[in-house]
C-alpha cells in the first residue's frame, strides 16, 4: 500500500485527497486515509482546502448550464424519431438497390448494342446514315426541339448505339408529356377556404401569378398542394399540432404537407361574432414568414411565437427545424398579438 501510512512523517498526496473526496478509492484505501487524517493536523487542513477547491469548482461549473431547468422531451418521441429514421434508411437502401439494378440493366443493354455494332461491320455502315437521317427529319417538327437531340455528342453516341431512333424519340416525347403534366400539376393554384369570406393570401398570390405556396422551396421532389379539410380530419392528419384560438368557431382548415420528417404547414380559419375571420398559421419559419409577408395591406399579422420544432434528417445527421405560429386578420396588431397569446396547439 502507500508509503505514507507506514512512514508517518509522509503526508497524503493531493491527488489522493481529490480521489478520496470524489469517492474513487477502494474501501481499504479510504480506511488508511481516514486513519492518517485522524492523527495528522496538516493533512486535515489540506483535506479542507481540497474540499473547498472542489466545491468552488462545482459551483462555478454549475453556472455554465444552458437553462436553469433542463426537461427531457418524452422518450416515446425519441423512439418515434428513431423508427422514422430506420424507415428512411430502409427506403434509401431500397432506392439505392433499385438504382444500381437499373444502372446495371442500362449498362448491359448499352454494352450489348456496342458489341453488336462492333461485331457486325455491315450493320454499322448501314445504320449510321439512317440514324443521321432520322434525327435530321424531325428537326422541322416542334417536338424536335428536345435539347438532347441538338447536342452533337449525344447525336454521336446515338449514331453508334441506336439502330432504331424513332421509338426512343417517342419515349422522349412521352417523358416530355409526363413532365409537363407533372409541372402543370405543381402549378395548380392553392385552394381557397370555401366556407366563408376568408382572407386568402394563397388565392391572391395565385391570381397575381406568384403562387408562392404551391412551389416547393428548394429541390423538394414532392408536390406541395394545399388541401382544405374538415376539422376532425385535420386533427388526425396533423396529430396534436393544430393552431387554434379557444372560444371562436372554426370555419376551415387548410394544410400543406411538408418535406419528409417535417410536419405540415397549417392554417386554421376562425370567425368571431362580428364576422371577422382570423387565421392562425403554424409551420416552418420560412413558410410562415412568407405567408405573413404576402398579405393585402389591410391584413395585419401578429408577432410570431415558437412552437415545437421539427427534427429533419439531413446529410449531417438529424437537425432541428424551427417552427412558428402567427395570427393574421383585419384587426389591429395588438388584438392579433392578444389572440396569438391565447392560441393553443391542439
Amino acid at each position: 500500500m502507500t508509503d505514507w501510512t507506514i512512514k508517518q512523517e509522509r503526508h497524503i498526496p493531493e491527488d489522493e485527497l481529490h480521489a478520496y473526496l470524489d469517492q474513487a478509492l477502494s474501501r481499504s484505501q479510504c480506511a488508511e486515509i481516514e486513519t492518517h487524517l485522524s492523527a495528522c493536523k496538516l493533512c486535515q487542513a489540506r483535506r479542507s482546502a481540497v474540499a473547498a477547491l472542489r466545491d468552488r469548482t462545482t459551483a462555478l461549473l454549475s453556472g455554465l448550464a444552458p437553462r436553469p431547468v433542463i426537461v427531457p422531451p418524452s422518450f416515446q418521441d425519441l423512439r418515434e424519431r428513431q423508427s422514422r429514421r430506420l424507415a428512411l434508411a430502409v427506403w434509401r437502401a431500397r432506392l439505392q438497390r433499385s438504382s444500381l439494378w437499373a444502372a446495371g440493366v442500362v449498362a448491359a443493354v448499352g454494352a450489348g448494342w456496342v458489341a453488336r455494332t462492333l461485331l457486325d461491320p455491315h450493320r454499322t455502315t448501314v445504320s449510321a446514315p439512317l440514324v443521321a437521317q432520322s434525327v435530321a427529319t424531325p428537326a422541322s417538327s416542334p417536338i424536335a426541339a428536345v435539347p438532347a437531340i441538338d447536342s452533337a455528342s449525344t447525336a454521336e453516341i446515338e449514331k453508334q448505339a441506336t439502330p432504331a431512333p424513332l421509338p426512343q424519340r417517342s419515349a422522349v416525347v412521352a417523358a416530355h408529356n409526363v413532365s409537363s403534366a407533372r409541372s402543370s400539376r405543381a402549378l395548380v393554384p392553392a385552394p381557397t377556404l370555401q366556407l366563408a369570406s376568408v382572407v386568402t393570401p394563397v388565392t391572391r398570390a395565385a391570381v397575381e401569378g406568384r403562387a408562392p405556396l404551391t412551389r416547393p422551396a428548394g429541390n423538394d421532389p414532392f408536390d406541395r398542394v394545399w388541401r382544405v379539410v374538415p376539422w376532425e380530419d385535420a386533427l388526425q392528419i396533423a396529430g396534436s399540432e393544430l393552431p387554434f384560438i379557444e372560444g371562436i368557431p372554426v370555419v376551415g382548415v387548410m394544410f400543406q404537407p411538408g418535406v419528409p420528417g417535417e410536419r405540415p404547414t397549417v392554417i386554421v380559419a376562425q370567425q368571431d361574432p362580428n364576422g371577422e375571420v382570423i387565421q392562425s398559421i403554424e409551420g416552418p419559419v420560412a413558410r410562415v414568414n412568407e405567408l405573413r409577408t404576402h398579405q393585402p395591406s389591410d391584413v395585419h399579422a401578429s408577432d410570431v411565437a415558437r412552437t415545437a420544432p421539427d427534427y429533419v434528417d439531413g446529410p449531417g445527421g438529424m437537425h432541428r427545424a424551427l417552427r412558428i405560429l402567427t395570427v393574421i386578420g383585419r384587426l389591429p396588431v395588438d388584438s392579433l398579438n392578444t389572440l396569438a397569446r391565447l392560441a393553443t396547439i391542439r
Partner: protein
Amino acid sequence: MDDLERLYKTHYAAVVRFLYRKIWDADRAEDLAQEVFIRAMAHRPEKPRAWIFAVAANLARDEARAAIRRKKHLTLLKDDPIPLSTPEPSAEDAVDREERWARVTGALAALTERDRDVLLLWDAGLSYPEIAAQTGLAVGAVGTTLARARKRLIEAHDRLDYQARTAHS
C-alpha cells in the same frame, strides 16, 4: 421502463450540460443530446453511461468543425422575428451575469484540452474508471489530472476576476 429510458431520464440534463460546455449553444446541445440517445437506442451499448458521453464528446468535436457554417445559419434565424414578449431581466443583472459567465468560460478555456475534458466528464457524473476509459488516461492519473484542472480553473477564474475589478476601479 427499460435501462436506456431510465438512463435517459436521469442523465439527459447532464449530457445537455456536458455538450453545452463544449459548444456553447443551448439549442444545439439539446439536439445533440437527443441524437446521442437515439443512437444509443440503435446500438444498445453494454456500458451505456460511458458510451453516451463518448458519443456526445465525438458529436461536440464534429460540431466544432461545422461551427463556422452553422454560425451563418444561426445568424439568419436570429434575424427572424421569433418570440412573443418575455420578461426582460434588468440591464444591471444582465451585465453582471454576462461578466460572471465570461470569467468562468474564460477560466475553462485557459485549461488544456485534456484537463478540461476530464473536469467536464467528472462534473457530468462519470466515475474515474469511466473517465479513464474515455480519455485514455490510467485510472490512477485521473485524480492527478482532476487536482490540476480544479486548481487551474480556480486560479484562472480569480485572475480574471481580479482583472475585471481593477478595470472597473
